[in-house]
Structure formats: structure tokens, C-alpha cells
């Protein structure tokens, strides 16, 4: 907008009459600053309007002066609060009160909503974590159940042979250990039913006899428990299983004088 267009727009008159919006005020003030002749024009318009207003001058009642001065004095003593600037024409442009209150309500409602959503969220998160834990323990149980099922399947398999190992030095007919031998699946398990606890520094070693040669099929944990099945190596063509007490870590060859039990496959 050039100077002529601005003057033709009627904004200057609007501003003098106090009906410009805040955006328009900014436009007008730019022109007032840029063109001294526009400012002069505006000033004379304002002056004419001031004079126009002045013709309505009416003497207020005498008592009003002291009433107003003391009201201002009261205001001076009251705690300061900053009202929005009145400025030229601003009264008409100020936001209505209800918009302010509405915005307070909206803010409060939003924060309350946010609070509840957050609380709900953390609740859900907790539930999710608990669910995950349950799932993990279920997985564990499932795995152990699977193991038991497998074990049961193995033990009840028709091809699984039970090899009773009895003490060679003892005469009781109770088995010292039992092995489960499956030549189809080529798998074997060992149950130390009632082997005595191992002395310090010693470990039980299990051997398979293949055509007169003793081949190691496994070492029993030192802290073994009766009834707990340990996996041992399956050896084809084994004719018997033997348990000897060996130094911890096992031996290359069985120490025959320490033979505790044996059984024929």
C-alpha cells in the first residue's frame, strides 16, 4: 500500500475515530512514523474530533470531584494490580471476559485429562510388566514340562532297556544305580539310585564295555542326587555298564579295584 492508497483506504479516519483493530493500529502507526504529512493530517483530525467532543462539555456535580479524587487515593493505597493497557480504541478490542475464563477451564480440564491418562498409562504399564513376568514363568514351566514329557516318552519307549547296576562287593539285591539304554534312539540316561556320596577329590565315572574295552560314557556330578537322571553317552555294541570311583575329573582307564557296581545290557 503506497501513501495515496493508504489515505484512500480510510484507515486514518478509522484510527482517529478509535475503531481500528490491533492489526490496523500497527499499520496506521507505521504510516504515521514514515510520513510527517500523514501525521499532521492525523493530528488535525484528532484535534477536530477533540473539539467536536468539547462542545458537549457539561459541568459535573460539585461533589463528584472529591469523590473521584478520594477514589483515586483509595486506589493508590490498594495493592497494585496491572490492568491491561487501555490505549486508544482498545476497549472495544479487548477479549471478552468469558474467553479468559473459558481458557482457564480448558487448561484445567486438559491437565486433569492428562493426569488421568498418565495414571492409566502407568497402571497399564504395570499390568503389562506383570503379564510379561507371568508369560516368562509360563514359558519356563512349559519348557520343564516339555522336558518331563520327553523324559517320560523316552522311559516308556519300548526300545528303552533298563540296566540295573548292582554293587559288586555287596550282596544286597537292590540296585546301586539304574541306566536306561535305547539302542534305537541311541540315547542313554543314568540314575544314581543309591550310590554313596563321593569322598573329597573323587568322582564317579561310568564306563561301557565294548568287546572287552572300557570306554568312558560320562562323569557323575559330585553333588549328584538320587533319582536325578543324568545323560550319558550312548555307545553301540556295549555289553555292560560299570561305575568306578576315580580322581575328580575322571581317568583315561578305569581303576578296576574301585569298581562299585556294574550291570549287563
Amino acid at each position, binding site marked *: 500500500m503506497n501513501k495515496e492508497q493508504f489515505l484512500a483506504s480510510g484507515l486514518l479516519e478509522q484510527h482517529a475515530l478509535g475503531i481500528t483493530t490491533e492489526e490496523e493500529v500497527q499499520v496506521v502507526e507505521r504510516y504515521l512514523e514514515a510520513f510527517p504529512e500523514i501525521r499532521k493530517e492525523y493530528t488535525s483530525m484528532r484535534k477536530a474530533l477533540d473539539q*467536536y467532543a468539547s462542545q*458537549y462539555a457539561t459541568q*459535573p456535580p460539585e461533589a*463528584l470531584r472529591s469523590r473521584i479524587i478520594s477514589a483515586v487515593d483509595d486506589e493508590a493505597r490498594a495493592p497494585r494490580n496491572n*490492568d491491561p493497557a487501555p490505549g486508544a480504541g482498545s476497549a472495544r478490542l479487548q477479549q471478552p471476559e468469558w474467553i479468559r475464563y473459558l481458557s482457564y477451564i480448558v487448561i484445567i480440564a486438559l491437565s486433569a485429562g492428562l493426569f488421568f491418562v498418565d495414571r492409566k498409562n502407568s497402571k497399564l504399564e504395570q499390568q503389562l510388566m506383570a503379564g510379561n513376568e507371568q508369560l516368562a514363568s509360563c514359558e519356563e514351566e512349559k519348557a520343564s514340562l516339555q522336558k518331563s514329557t520327553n523324559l517320560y516318552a523316552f522311559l516308556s519307549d519300548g526300545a528303552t532297556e533298563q540296566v540295573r547296576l548292582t554293587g559288586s562287593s555287596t550282596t544286597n539285591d537292590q540296585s546301586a544305580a539304574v541306566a536306561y539304554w535305547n539302542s534305537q534312539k541311541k540315547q542313554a540316561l543314568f540314575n544314581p539310585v543309591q550310590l554313596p556320596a563321593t569322598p573329597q577329590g573323587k568322582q564317579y565315572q561310568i564306563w561301557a564295555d565294548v568287546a572287552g574295552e572300557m570306554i568312558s560314557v560320562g562323569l557323575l556330578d559330585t553333588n549328584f542326587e538320587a533319582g536325578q537322571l543324568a545323560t550319558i553317552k550312548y555307545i553301540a555294541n556295549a555289553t555292560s555298564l560299570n561305575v568306578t570311583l576315580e580322581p575328580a575329573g575322571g581317568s583315561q582307564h578305569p581303576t578296576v579295584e574301585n569298581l562299585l557296581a556294574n550291570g549287563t545290557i
Partner: protein
Amino acid sequence: MNVSEQTLGELLQRQDRRGIEILYDGYSDVLYGITLKIVHAEDVARDILQEAFIKIWKNGARYDPDKGTVFTWALNITRNLAIDHIRSASYRRRRHIENIETIPANAEVSLTTENNTDSIGLDKVLRRLDVKYQEVIDLIYFRGHTQSEVKDLLGIPLGTVKSRVRIGLRELRKAFATHRIPILLGIMYHLAGRALSHEYLKIALSL
């Protein structure tokens, strides 16, 4: 009491009580008259004038001499408060009740306050301003209507409203320019009246 515009502005900016007193003594008649012209009720006009002076006092620091005179500033604050009042619901309710009870006393007619005689010269100015221009300017200046509201109220095109505003303001300026001398005399009389006590003036006039 006669102080320069600049001093008055500074007093108000500093929230000096004397600024309010000077402003009251110098301009309360115009501010009150304008308020009365807008609200048409003396009790309301008194309350609004009080409210306006408190607002002027509170916002003194925001007065900017570059944007206009103290008088213009104070006039705008007062006028806006009065316009806000007539646009508020309570005013409309009150008008409504008055209409129902058909109170014959139109507020404007029933005014008993004295009219300043030193505005006689200005009345002539007004009479010379064509009523169609005055009507438009008054609806905006004293009723706070926008130009498009005036368009609807008077049922004339917006372009006509705008040109009437422009011509009206130009006519006002012209009229006041040619009446500068009577106005100056009026102002001098006015100031003299303030300077001397009313009693003293009466004695002087009776001689």
C-alpha cells in the same frame, strides 16, 4: 491551575496525584459531557467518570506523548468505558425496561446540568455540519459502531459510509479552522473562568 501538556503527562506517568487533580479541573467537563452524551444517565455518567479517572491513574505509566495529547488519551479511555457500558447487557436491560414503562423523560431531554456557555461558537460549527455526516460520525464516535455496522444501521452502502466519514471529518476540520478565533476566545474565557473564582467572576460581570 495551568500547566503545560508535557508537565501534565509527566505527572500522570509518575502517578502523581496532582496530575489527576489538574486533569479533573481542566477536562472533567468535557469528559463528563461526553459520557453523558453516550450513556444518557447522570448517575451512570458519574460512575463511569470515576472509573475512567481510576483507569487513567492506574495506567499513567502507559501514556505515550508521541501518540497524542493527554486530553485525547483521557478522552479515549472515558469514551471507551462509556461505549462498553452501553454495549453491556445491563444497559440494554435497563433501556428495555424504560421502553416498557414508557418513561416519558428521555434522558437527553431531562438533563438538568448546566450547559457550558463557552461552547456557543462551537454549536454554530455543528449546525453547519450536514446532518448526514454528523449522523455517521456520531454513530461511530459516540456509539462505538464499526463502519459496517453503520452501513447496516442506516441501510447505505459501505462506500458511502466511508466517504461520509471522510468528508465529515474534513468538514469538521475546516469548520474548526475557520472558527479558530472564536474558539480561542472561548478557551481564553474558559481558562479565565477557572483562574478566577466563580464569585469573583460574577462581581466582575455585574460591574
